[in-house]
């Protein structure tokens, strides 16, 4: 690999991965074909052009993902992703609140979303999925189910949103942060960037358990220590 090629590759690394996968090889070929004899560095115009194109690609990705999520999110969100969102969301609530919040008003929408999500997303897919038999990440049945499928996803999504909105504000913020990876995943999927792989879904499911572990370790750290009887004044009220 020449120095020029290495420098072109560094510039091409500015592009989003989807763009690189599709075009990097042929872009590199075109850049090298257009290089002058003895050229060792990219020309200034090429650097500007590539940087601008990379920025455009990133912005386009963000805009299309956001637009798709806002406008088509309900219709295009696979029920399996909703079910994963539900699972992660419930676990995130548990992690962030250590349970008592489910005795509040957020219990009912969470329960409703749980029943619908499990009944339509997890349960039918889990035993029959050919690709990932133990994770229903391939669930696309709502596309074929038409209005009924969209309605199921819409109701589940609304219930999930209601669950989060009914939480007390400091807990809501913590849960929102924990839910960001799943929302990001759904946006990427809607933008057609990738389908959630088993590894990604597993990572997302692991996040709440890490949250639980962290919240418990923090709680234990805050517990008052037993007074040392050898110290003066120990045992006095």
């Amino acid at each position, binding site marked *: 690999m020449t120095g020029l090629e290495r420098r072109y590759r560094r510039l091409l690394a500015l592009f989003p991965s989807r763009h690189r996968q599709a075009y990097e090889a042929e872009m590199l070929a*075109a850049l090298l074909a257009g290089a002058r004899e003895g050229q060792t560095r990219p020309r200034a115009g*090429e650097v500007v052009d590539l*940087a601008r194109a990379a920025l455009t690609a990133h912005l386009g990705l963000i805009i299309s993902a956001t637009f798709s999520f806002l406008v088509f999110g309900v219709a295009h969100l696979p029920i399996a992703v909703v079910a994963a969102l539900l699972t992660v969301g419930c676990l995130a609530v548990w992690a962030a609140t250590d349970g008592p919040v489910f005795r509040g008003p957020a219990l009912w929408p969470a329960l409703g979303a749980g029943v619908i999500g499990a009944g339509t997303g997890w349960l039918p897919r889990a035993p029959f999925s050919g690709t990932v038999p133990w994770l229903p990440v391939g669930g696309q049945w709502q596309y074929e189910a038409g209005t009924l499928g969209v309605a199921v996803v819409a109701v589940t999504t609304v219930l999930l949103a209601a669950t989060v909105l009914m939480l007390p504000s400091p807990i809501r913020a913590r849960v929102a942060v924990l839910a960001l990876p799943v929302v990001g995943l759904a946006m990427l999927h809607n933008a057609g960037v990738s389908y959630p792989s088993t590894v990604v879904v597993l990572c997302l499911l692991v996040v709440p358990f890490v949250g639980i572990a962290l919240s418990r370790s923090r709680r234990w750290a805050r517990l008052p220590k037993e007074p040392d009887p050898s110290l003066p004044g120990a045992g006095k009220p």
Partner: protein
Amino acid sequence: MKDDAPLREPSYLILTSLAAEPRHGYAVIEDVKQISEGRVVIGVGTLYTAIDRLHSDGLIEVDREEVVDSRLRRYYRLTNDGARRLAAETARLTRHAAAATSRLRVLGVEPA
């Protein structure tokens, strides 16, 4: 993309280049330079931004791939939709050019 939305100049020239024959990226850049008499030089970044958009809009498609000197050459060709779009855009530009020409003649100016 809406059918009546004007094409940007790079996209128009890329479609024009591919109307002649399937071409790979660098060949498109060289052909556009020739069509525009050196006035338009499309950078590789701009070219592939346009190719990505034209491809997703169904105006061009991959014709074939070749490996030359260990480098990938992907050839693109115009689709039927692309040809229709290029024809519509050309008709629009021709109308505008005709209107400009007739009004310039009134002023006694002949387009070069």
